[in-house]
């Protein structure tokens, strides 16, 4: 926004308020002085104040997601300088399950996968992601995560989303992935009991293994204080070079360099939905996905070179 535009906006806003208008009306009158894109944004915000925006039955709010995109876009372009490979391998329509490695207590990796798909995919789509239950106890975090497409990590949610032909991202390492110390970075944890494979089989959704490199350096966890974690009800309480020493500033992630690779999808439809009950097949596919992600993580670590510069 140009300085002149901003000044004109403020002047009109003050005139409107002096004339006894309500704030929303004064804002929309002032908006006439703004450049087009800023005017659009302001009008959108005003519309939201009237409750005239749509959220779907999951609480996903596309309008809101677009409004906050510049922030995540900044992280994507400037802060983490994300490089993406293989975005075209993600199916352009219909159901699919993204299975990714995971690090850090806040789901930054999920947001970067989301930005990667809206930027690099030939037919951009917003993925929905399963988020650790604990996040939904927290004020603001819970509301925010839901608005940008996060849901409680429940198999019922995953199945329903897939049946509605959504793109669903899961982090099968779960809390084991987020809580591992820095020394074990990029070593994938056990993929649970393969619940995500069962769901993919039942829904007939292809599984796309995703490798994310860079997320392990944003909050290098040096130690854990279980006593504090118990008190606040968190799965663990990390100590990083900046947290909790710098207070709220410690939540700012370090600017590592990132790479995201979407690997070749694994077809599950050919086994049929009944295969979800076949333990050995489920475990075999789970292992296959885990292997693929681990290999891709190592390959991308080499390709990335140094972590920060």
């Amino acid at each position: 926004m140009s300085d002149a535009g901003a000044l004109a906006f403020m002047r009109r806003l003050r005139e409107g308020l002096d004339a006894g208008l309500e704030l929303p009306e004064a804002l929309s009158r002032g908006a006439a002085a703004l450049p087009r894109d800023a005017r659009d944004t302001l009008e959108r915000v005003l519309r939201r104040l009237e409750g005239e925006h749509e959220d779907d039955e999951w609480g996903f709010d596309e309008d809101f997601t677009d409004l906050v995109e510049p922030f995540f876009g900044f992280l994507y372009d400037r802060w983490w300088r994300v490089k993406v490979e293989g975005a075209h391998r993600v199916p352009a329509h219909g159901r699919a399950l993204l299975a990714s490695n995971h690090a850090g207590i806040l789901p930054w990796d999920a947001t970067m996968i989301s930005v990667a798909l809206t930027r690099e995919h030939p037919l951009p789509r917003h993925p929905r992601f399963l988020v650790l239950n604990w996040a939904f106890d927290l004020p603001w975090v819970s509301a925010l995560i839901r608005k940008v497409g996060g849901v409680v990590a429940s198999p019922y949610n995953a199945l329903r989303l897939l049946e509605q032909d959504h793109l669903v991202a899961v982090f099968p390492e779960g809390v084991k992935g987020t809580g591992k110390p820095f020394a074990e970075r990029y070593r994938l944890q056990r993929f649970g009991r393969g619940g995500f494979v069962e769901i993919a089989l039942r829904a007939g959704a292809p599984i796309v293994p995703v490798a994310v490199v860079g997320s392990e350096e944003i909050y290098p966890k040096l130690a854990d204080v279980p006593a504090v974690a118990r008190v606040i009800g968190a799965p663990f309480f990390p100590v990083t070079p900046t947290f909790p020493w710098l207070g709220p500033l410690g939540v700012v992630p370090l600017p590592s360099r990132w790479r995201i690779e979407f690997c070749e999808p694994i077809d599950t439809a050919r086994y049929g939905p009944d295969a979800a009950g076949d333990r050995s097949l489920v475990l075999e596919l789970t292992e296959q996905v885990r292997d693929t992600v681990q290999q891709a993580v190592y390959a991308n670590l080499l390709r990335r070179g140094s972590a920060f510069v």
Partner: protein
Amino acid sequence: MAGRRVLITGVGSYLGTLLAARLEEDPSFERIVGLDTRAPRRQLGRTELIEADIRDPSIAPLIAGAEVDTVVHNSIVRQPGPGMSARAMHDINVIGSLQLLSACGQSPTIRAIVIRGSAGIYGSEPHAPQFFGEEMTRMFPLRTRFQRDVGEIENYFETYSRRHPEITCTMLRYQPAIGPSLATQITRYLSQPACPTYLGFDPRIQLVHEADALDSLVAAIKRPVRGAVNVAARGTIGLARMIRMAHRPMLPIVGPLFGPVTDVGRRLGFDSYSDDFRRLLRYGRGVDITRLEQEVGHRPRYSTTEAVRDWVAAA
């Protein structure tokens, strides 16, 4: 099948009166009997009214004497109104349902029982799946008094249903209702000068429009299915958006202070908040309505957003 003969408990409630009036218009219902201690909300035609309290064992001969084939249990109290203690609510809900079921056991003509229950049995939980299916009642502990009441009613009902395989027992689990002619906790909440919310929480709320609440009940009477069925509008709405649509200011309150602040509000004459409603305002709740649409055969006409819009337009 000859004409249906239906008995409705709680005919003096808003929905009970509307249901009786609706069945009166339908010639396939030969006989309609209304049971309540209160008079119906408006003049009814051919409905035969019985003044009796379902907590009283003497209803058994009355119900047997009515020779009905279907009993609609519509007297479950969702929140204690003015002049009703929590104890009285518990008695009406639990003892009343128990008496009613035992009375039904003594009436050989009964083929179907439809209960207007509550989706409150699922609770409002931060870690819950976003849409509860009918089989998910035991995922979380029953935390509030009302939940335990509903849990008890459902238990009696399940046992009864197992012991009487010849009777089709339908448990309708209703989400909170909204509509221009209803006065429920949610409409009172949205009519206040400001709506208290939990600071930092914006839960998904799912409601049911009064027209769909009635139509679902009629559909379940016409086509009883075994077991529980969720009744709700399609889709959910964020609490903040709902309050904005009602043109009310939000009053965000830090979690631990929500109880004390609303208690002060109650002393000053504002509405009181049940534990269930507080949890709903914090965590919300959604249910899956596939069974209602496909088995009972009622497709809700209003989505949750449309139901709120309809109420706002009329208010």
